[in-house]
């Protein structure tokens, strides 16, 4: 590049030197052209700065004016003087293409005609000038057309290349993030952040649905509530964060209404055959819809007006794991086939990630769940109690035992014994609710941990459990089912796990000895 510039300046210098040798310097006569060109140059530079859309036009018009002015000043009688029109002709052809070239050629012919008509020019001279300019124009236009076509093709390919490289970079970054996700909520955010605007594929709204047996349920959604909100959030993403990880870790206030609504959605695969989400799962086929009917999404989703959207299945090992639903509601950018193609590639990666996380969560859940009662198991009880003690979180521990469980087994068989344990487990879950977690400690013994709850609340929960248990009916057993419960508190009653459990267990024994179906919670003296 640098060598080319030097060569160019050397070439110009040689050219000027040769002209000087032939004609010398006529500053008096031609100085006015120099001033005129400087004024025109300044004006065009101003246009370039303040109104760039008029720049090309001003260049062509200005160069034509300059040539006219030069011809008038020089009053040239040289037959080659009119070749100066090649100057605007070249600029017009290179700047504006065929039409620019033709227009300037037309104007040059008019100027020649005007000169011939009013200032005298032989017909021979006029025709030969028009012909020379015409031939030069044809050559220039041919070159400009080829050049233009080549540039357009290159630009088109270059843009496609950039889009693909950007996508691959994003996919690489997202895949590495997905591999580090340990829970589904993190994965949701990674996947949808990568799909939506600000960072990644740039869709305005994205929803993810997962398939569970015969049902499809709403899992997560990202999307602003208004156009202004959308632009504000996308702006913040770039202003404040620099990479995907920071974007994922940020807490931008996306539309909670959309997320809340999506999380409530459960669709039956057997029911709604017109719903695009169901159709996508069943056909395993992505769809790009223009001017669709938002009502087809059902009453919960129809209020979000999905009209121009794409639905893409996440397929792993020939099984549909879930579905993406995306649109560009706020910037109204049309979703093209290429966008759908990218989304399909992305959905394949996401499907694997979702399948892995769901599998991992299932294995994790199995590892901490008691199969018979579906309560948490002994292992998770130990983990939980250890966690609360380590973090110094106060809690109340309840130790629960089924009264005369041995007799249930002996009198009615082990099947009824299992039924007792299942029903007790179900009752404990229901009674505790969000206050804490029930566990199967072992055999017919259960525990409940109520973090940050008082002894009084624990006693109320215990009484509720006992009342609920009395309502349980068993298939063949007629003996009423009752529970004895012992309550102890951390850190008030004991500071280590073993001591706390022994204390609660002692109270349980007192409850048994004092006639069963009793709660003992007294503070140790």
């Amino acid at each position, binding site marked *: 590049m640098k060598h080319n510039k030097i060569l160019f300046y050397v070439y110009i210098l040689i050219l000027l030197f040769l002209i000087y040798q032939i004609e010398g310097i006529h500053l008096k006569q031609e100085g006015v052209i120099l001033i005129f060109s400087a004024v025109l140059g300044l004006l065009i530079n101003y246009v370039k700065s*303040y109104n760039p859309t008029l720049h090309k036009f001003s260049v062509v018009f200005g160069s034509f004016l300059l040539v006219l002015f030069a011809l008038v000043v020089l009053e040239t009688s040289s037959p080659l003087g009119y070749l100066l029109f090649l100057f605007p002709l070249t600029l017009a052809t290179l*700047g504006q293409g065929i039409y620019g070239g033709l227009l300037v050629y037309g104007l040059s012919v008019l100027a020649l005609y005007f000169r011939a008509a009013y200032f005298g020019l032989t017909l021979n001279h006029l025709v030969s000038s028009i012909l020379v300019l015409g031939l030069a124009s044809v050559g220039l236009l041919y070159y400009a057309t080829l050049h233009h076509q080549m540039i357009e093709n290159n630009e088109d390919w270059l*843009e496609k290349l950039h889009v693909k490289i950007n996508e691959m*970079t994003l996919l690489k970054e997202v895949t590495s993030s997905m591999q580090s996700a340990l829970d589904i909520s993190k994965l949701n955010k990674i996947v949808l952040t990568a799909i939506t605007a600000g960072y990644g594929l740039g869709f305005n709204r994205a929803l993810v649905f997962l398939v569970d047996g015969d049902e499809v349920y709403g899992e997560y959604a990202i999307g602003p509530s208004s156009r202004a909100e959308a632009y504000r959030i*996308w*702006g913040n993403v*770039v202003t404040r964060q620099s990479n995907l990880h920071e974007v994922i870790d940020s807490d931008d206030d996306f539309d909670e209404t959309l997320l809340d609504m999506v999380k409530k959605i459960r669709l039956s695969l057997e029911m709604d055959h017109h719903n695009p989400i169901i159709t996508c799962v069943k056909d395993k086929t992505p769809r790009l819809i223009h001017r669709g009917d938002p009502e087809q999404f059902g009453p919960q989703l129809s209020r979000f007006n999905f009209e121009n959207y794409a639905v893409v299945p996440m397929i792993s090992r020939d099984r549909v794991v879930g579905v993406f639903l995306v649109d560009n509601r706020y910037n109204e950018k049309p979703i093209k086939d290429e966008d759908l193609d990218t989304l399909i590639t992305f959905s394949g990666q996401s499907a694997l990630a979702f399948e892995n996380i769901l599998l991992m969560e299932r294995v994790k859940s199995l590892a901490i769940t008691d199969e018979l009662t579906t309560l948490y198991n002994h292992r998770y009880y130990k983990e939980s109690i250890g966690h609360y003690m380590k973090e110094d979180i106060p809690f109340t521990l309840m130790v629960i035992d089924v009264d005369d469980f041995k007799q249930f087994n002996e009198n009615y068989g082990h099947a009824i014994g299992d039924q007792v344990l299942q029903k007790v487990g179900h009752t404990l879950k229901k009674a505790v609710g969000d206050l804490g977690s029930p566990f199967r400690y072992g055999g017919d013994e259960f525990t409940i941990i109520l973090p940050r709850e008082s002894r009084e609340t624990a006693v109320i929960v215990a009484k509720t459990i006992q009342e609920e248990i009395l309502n349980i009916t068993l298939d063949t057993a007629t003996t009423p089912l009752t529970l004895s419960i012992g309550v102890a508190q951390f850190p008030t009653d004991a500071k280590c796990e073993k001591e706390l459990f022994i204390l609660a267990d002692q109270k349980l024994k007192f409850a048994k000895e004092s006639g069963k179906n009793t709660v003992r919670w007294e503070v140790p003296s």
Partner: protein
Amino acid sequence: MMITGLSFLLFLLAIYKVPLFKRDGAIERNMMPENAEFTIASMPFRVERIVYYVPVPHHTYGKDPHLIDNLTVEYVKKKAFDSHPFAIQVYYQNGQERKMVAEVLSHRFDVPYLDTLYGENLLSKKEYEYLRLYKYNHPSTKDLFKNEVAKKLSTPIYQMK
């Protein structure tokens, strides 16, 4: 003809090569809202639109202690007489070795703050497009671009997380 030839050359230099008018002040007064968070110079752009033609981070360029000095930013025009460049390219030059390392096209150059202003109806579509291209052509973009490329070339991936 000597002076006429020089006049034509002067004309070409004046219209294409010499940036005579500094527009930042006028543009910020006339187009940007009064309480704008950014000036044209400080506005960030979407760096993930930059395409790298070498692996990032780069095991050789990234360890060069004079990396910033060895990076040069160049504007590329589609046609010689275009008023706006269509690509910004960053080259790494060390001795005889010269390699294009990164590029961003004007079509894919996004300034999210302008998106925000446009989204809030504080800019018209025409003003938005004008400012976007103006920012693309602005000297600050050169510096931001160069620093971003240097950062990507030299920062190990695990530190970016």
